[in-house]
C-alpha cells in the first residue's frame, strides 16, 4: 500500500487546503475498494506492478487533482475571441511592420556598411522578443482585467441588436473615399502644373531650391499618375464596386507610384539651396542632409510600398474569390441579392 499512499500524497499536493483531507479520504477509500475487489476476483493479494497499473489507469496525480478544482480561466469564452482579434491586429499592424522595416534597414545597412548578417540577426533577436513579449503581455493583462470586470458587472451582456453595424460589403468602394481621392489628386495636379510646371528652380520667401534635372521625369510621371488616379476615382464614384479589372488597374497604378516615389528618395533631388544672408557652405550642408535623409528613409518607403502592393493584390484575390464563391454564383443564377 506504500504505492497508494505515495499516489495520494502526490494528489494531495495539488488540492485546495480546505478540501484536501476530505477528497483524499474519499479517493483513498475508492482506490482501496477497487484493489480489494480485484484481490477477491483473483483470490490473492495484488503485487506492486498490478497496483501500479490501477493507479496509472486513474491518471497523473496533477490531472486527478485538477478535476476537483473549480474551472478557472484567465480570459473567458466571452472575451477570448475579442482577445484573439486584438492580438491579430497587434501582429498585423505593429509586429509585422516592425519586422519588415527591420528587414529593410538591415538590407540597406548591409549594402552600405557591410554589417554581417549574423550580427544583424543577433540584434534583431535581442530587440524583437522583449518588444513582442511586452506587446502580447500587455494585451493579455488588459484582457485579464477586463475579464474580472466583465464577470462582476456583466457589461458584455448588455447589447442591442439594433445597434449592430450595417452589413458590410468588402467590395463596395465608399463614396467618401472616392470623393477624397478625386479632390486630393485634383489639388496635387493643380499644385504640380501651377507651381512645378517644367521648372527646376523653386522660390519660397527668400529661399531658392534648385532641383536636379531628373525632376522632369518625376514631374511627368507624377502628373500622369495623378490624372489616371483621378479618372479611376471618378469611375469608382459612379460605380462604387471593385471589379477585377479596376482592382488590377489600382495595383498597377500603385506599383508605378511606388517605384517613382522610391526612386525619388534615392535620386538626390535637391541640387542646391540658397537662402539670403546664409553662407553657401551652410546651405550646401542642408541640401546634402536632405538628400542623405531621403536616401536613408528609402527602406521604410520600400516597405510601405510593398504593404500597399500586398493590400492591392489581396483586393484582386478577394474580388476574384467572391465572384467564384458558390453562394454568389447561386445568387446570380437565381437573381437573388
Amino acid at each position, binding site marked *: 500500500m506504500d504505492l497508494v499512499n505515495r499516489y495520494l500524497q502526490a494528489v494531495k499536493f495539488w488540492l485546495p487546503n480546505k478540501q484536501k483531507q476530505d477528497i483524499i479520504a474519499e*479517493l483513498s*477509500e475508492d482506490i482501496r475498494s477497487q484493489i480489494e475487489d480485484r484481490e477477491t476476483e483473483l483470490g490473492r493479494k495484488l503485487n506492486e506492478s498490478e497496483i501500479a497499473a490501477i493507479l496509472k489507469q486513474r491518471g497523473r496525480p496533477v490531472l486527478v487533482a485538477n478535476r476537483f478544482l473549480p474551472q478557472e480561466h484567465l480570459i473567458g469564452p466571452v472575451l477570448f475571441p475579442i482577445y484573439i482579434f486584438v492580438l491579430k491586429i497587434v501582429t498585423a499592424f505593429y509586429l509585422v511592420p516592425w519586422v519588415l522595416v527591420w528587414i529593410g534597414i538591415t538590407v540597406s545597412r548591409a549594402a552600405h556598411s557591410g554589417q554581417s548578417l549574423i550580427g544583424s540577426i543577433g540584434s534583431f533577436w535581442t530587440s524583437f522578443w522583449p518588444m513582442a513579449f511586452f506587446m502580447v503581455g500587455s494585451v493579455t493583462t488588459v484582457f485579464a482585467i477586463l475579464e474580472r470586470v466583465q464577470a462582476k458587472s456583466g457589461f458584455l451582456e448588455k447589447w442591442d441588436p439594433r445597434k449592430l453595424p450595417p452589413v458590410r460589403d468588402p467590395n463596395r468602394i465608399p463614396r467618401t473615399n472616392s470623393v477624397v481621392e478625386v479632390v486630393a489628386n485634383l489639388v496635387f495636379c493643380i499644385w504640380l502644373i501651377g507651381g512645378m510646371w517644367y521648372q527646376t528652380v523653386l522660390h519660397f520667401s527668400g529661399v531658392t531650391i534648385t532641383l536636379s534635372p531628373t525632376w522632369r521625369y518625376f514631374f511627368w510621371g507624377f502628373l500622369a499618375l495623378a490624372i489616371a488616379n483621378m479618372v479611376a476615382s471618378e469611375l469608382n464614384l459612379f460605380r462604387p464596386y471593385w471589379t477585377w479589372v479596376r482592382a488590377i488597374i489600382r495595383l498597377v497604378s500603385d506599383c508605378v507610384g511606388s517605384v517613382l516615389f522610391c526612386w525619388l528618395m534615392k535620386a538626390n533631388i535637391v541640387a542646391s539651396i540658397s537662402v539670403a544672408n546664409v553662407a553657401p557652405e551652410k546651405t550646401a550642408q542642408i541640401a546634402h542632409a536632405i538628400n542623405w535623409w531621403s536616401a536613408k528613409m528609402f527602406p521604410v518607403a520600400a516597405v510601405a510600398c510593398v504593404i500597399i502592393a500586398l493590400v492591392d493584390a489581396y483586393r484582386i484575390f478577394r474580388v476574384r474569390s467572391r465572384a467564384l464563391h458558390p453562394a454568389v454564383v447561386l445568387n446570380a443564377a437565381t437573381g437573388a441579392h
Partner: protein
Amino acid sequence: MHDTVCLVHYMSHGTENDGLLENLRLELRRGCLVLAVLAELRTEQYGYTLRKGLADRGLAVDEGTLYPLLRRLESQGLLASEWREEDKRNKRFYKISRDGKLVLKQLLVEWQGIGLSLEEILKESDHGSR
C-alpha cells in the same frame, strides 16, 4: 437509417475519427450522467458502489469524473452526504436530497421530451432518405 449506419461504420475505422467519435460520445453522455447519478442515489450509496452500479448498467464512468460531479451536486444542494463507518472503514455515503428529487423529476420529463423529439426527427430522416 442506412446512411447513419454507413457513417458510424466509416467513423469507427478512421483513427482520427475515433477521437472525434469518442469526444462526441463523451459530450452526449455528460448530460445523461447527472440524471443517472441522481436516479441511482435514490438509494443511499458510497462512491465506489455507485460507480460499480453505473458500470454494471452500462454507464461506466471514471472516478475523476464521478467524484467531482458528486461534490458539485452536493454543493448545489441536490445531494446530501455523510461519513460513516462500514466494514471497519470510513466511507462517504451519498443520497439524493429533497431538492434533488424535484430536479430529477423535472429532468426526467425533459429527458423523455428529448427522446421523443429525437425519435420523431429520426423517423422523418428515415422517410426522407428512402
